[in-house]
């Protein structure tokens, strides 16, 4: 689930006259089918309070959600989790979404996939697979995911995915304890015949915030990684597309998180809560609506959680009078909450925030801590 990054799930089309209407329709939905997962990545972006299997939406609920989402204007569904392949109805859900003309993407750790399951997904019309890797080499990868044999399984599954004719994106979340293997990670993407590689620095809320001391890269590591990505992009042009999500802590300006709150994207939790971003539950005091009680259309237009930080009216200074306010929408609300105690503050990743210096110093201290141990993501683990 880490695999979806908060930078911009589906960037707005390059020329979009449709966006001048007051409330633009959403483009993409992240469907978190379950929070169950065999892995326990310490940077998992699922909430600390994981939802249990007995509260998960049923097949018909999800199908209705996709039908309503498509009618509203959604174009892409990302099937995510937890581990979405734990849902025995995954192929049925893909088929339903595909029948609605939605673009279907499976975001998976891969460890539970086999040729038979893949064939069923291909038959259902799956368009694309995004497979996560924890490192380039088994020992460290399996330590990070806390799952024995996982890396070896992923390499084998990547070959099955390609053999099934499915296009593949490799996702690698990077941090202090694997960043020195970036060259090998890029080589692995090429080797498993991925057409796209997402190199995503950890973003710190939820589990990752708990593990910040163990994960925060040093400034030197970051600079080396960025230079390496730049060089690889040139070297592998037309062969491998590399998307790079930079870490906020050493930045001068924040990311345009979610492409703007409530602008193009929503997330549905396993139990049916509709969130403006997958980490939104980390913000205290936001009220979320559920697809069990309301239609997707109603929630998109009326849900308090969406309207609270939509657009620019909610902004305090320095954002309110800043000429970048519609370029980055003030950055990440979850990060503002985690680091300043209020989600209504400017993201401290911005140099103009009064909290920026403290954030930067926290990064330096964590990076220097050398903390090797993780708090693993599991029910009761927080």
């Amino acid at each position, binding site marked *: 689930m880490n695999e979806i990054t908060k930078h*911009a*799930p*589906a*960037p*707005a*089309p*390059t*020329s*979009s006259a*449709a966006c001048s209407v007051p409330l633009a*329709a959403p*483009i993409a939905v992240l469907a978190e089918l379950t929070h169950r997962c065999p892995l326990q990545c310490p940077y998992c972006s699922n909430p600390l309070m994981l939802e249990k299997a007995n509260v998960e939406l049923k097949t018909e609920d999800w199908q209705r959600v996709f039908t309503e989402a498509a*009618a*509203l*204007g959604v*174009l*892409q569904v990302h099937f995510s989790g937890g581990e979405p392949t734990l849902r025995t109805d995954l192929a049925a859900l893909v088929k339903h979404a595909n029948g609605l*003309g939605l*673009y279907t*993407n499976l975001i998976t750790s891969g460890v539970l996939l086999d040729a038979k399951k893949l064939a069923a997904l291909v038959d259902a019309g799956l*368009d*694309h697979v*995004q497979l996560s890797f924890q490192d380039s080499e088994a020992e460290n990868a399996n330590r990070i995911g806390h799952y024995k044999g996982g890396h070896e399984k992923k390499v084998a599954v990547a070959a099955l995915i390609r053999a099934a*004719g*499915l*296009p593949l*994106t490799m996702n690698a979340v990077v941090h202090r304890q694997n960043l020195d293997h970036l060259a090998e990670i890029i080589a692995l993407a090429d080797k498993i*015949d991925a*057409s*796209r590689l997402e190199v995503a620095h950890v973003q710190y809320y939820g589990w990752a915030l708990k593990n910040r001391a163990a994960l925060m890269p040093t400034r030197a590591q970051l600079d080396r990684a960025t230079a390496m990505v730049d060089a690889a992009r040139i070297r592998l*042009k*037309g*062969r*491998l*597309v590399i*998307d790079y999500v930079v870490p906020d802590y050493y930045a001068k300006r924040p990311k345009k998180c979610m492409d703007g709150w409530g602008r193009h994207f929503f997330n549905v939790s396993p139990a049916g809560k509709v969130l403006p971003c997958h980490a939104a539950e980390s913000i205290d005091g936001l009220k979320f609506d559920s697809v069990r009680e309301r239609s997707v259309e109603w929630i998109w237009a009326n849900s308090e959680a969406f309207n609270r930080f939509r657009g620019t009216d909610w902004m305090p200074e320095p954002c309110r009078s800043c000429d970048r306010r519609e370029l980055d929408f003030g950055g990440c609300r979850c990060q503002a909450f985690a680091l300043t105690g209020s989600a209504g503050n400017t993201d401290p990743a911005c140099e103009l925030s009064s909290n920026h210096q403290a954030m930067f110093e926290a990064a330096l201290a964590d990076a220097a801590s050398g903390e090797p141990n993780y708090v693993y993501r599991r029910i009761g683990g927080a």
Partner: protein
Amino acid sequence: MEPIKVGATSRIVLPRHVKLKHDTVRDRWILLAPERVLNPDETSLEIVRMLDGVCSVGDIVGTLAVKYNAPSEVILVDVIGMLQDLCDKGFLVSAETVATHAGRTS
């Protein structure tokens, strides 16, 4: 995936993971790929629609030259530029590449 150098003899198609789709809610044509949505202009759209895996880039240019009564040398440069850009971004591939569904629409 091998890099593509688009020329007059190339045959270019949409890869399996890119869909040309009519976005009914917004009434426009789009190219959909994971994490990406592209809204091609009318000219690009016309060319993308002609990518059937059989016609070469030269054939397409020939058709356009007749239709618009314009010199094919000029059109060729524009068409190659546009196709090369979409290939580099991963929205198009060479027809020789395996696992393609040419011109898949929905």
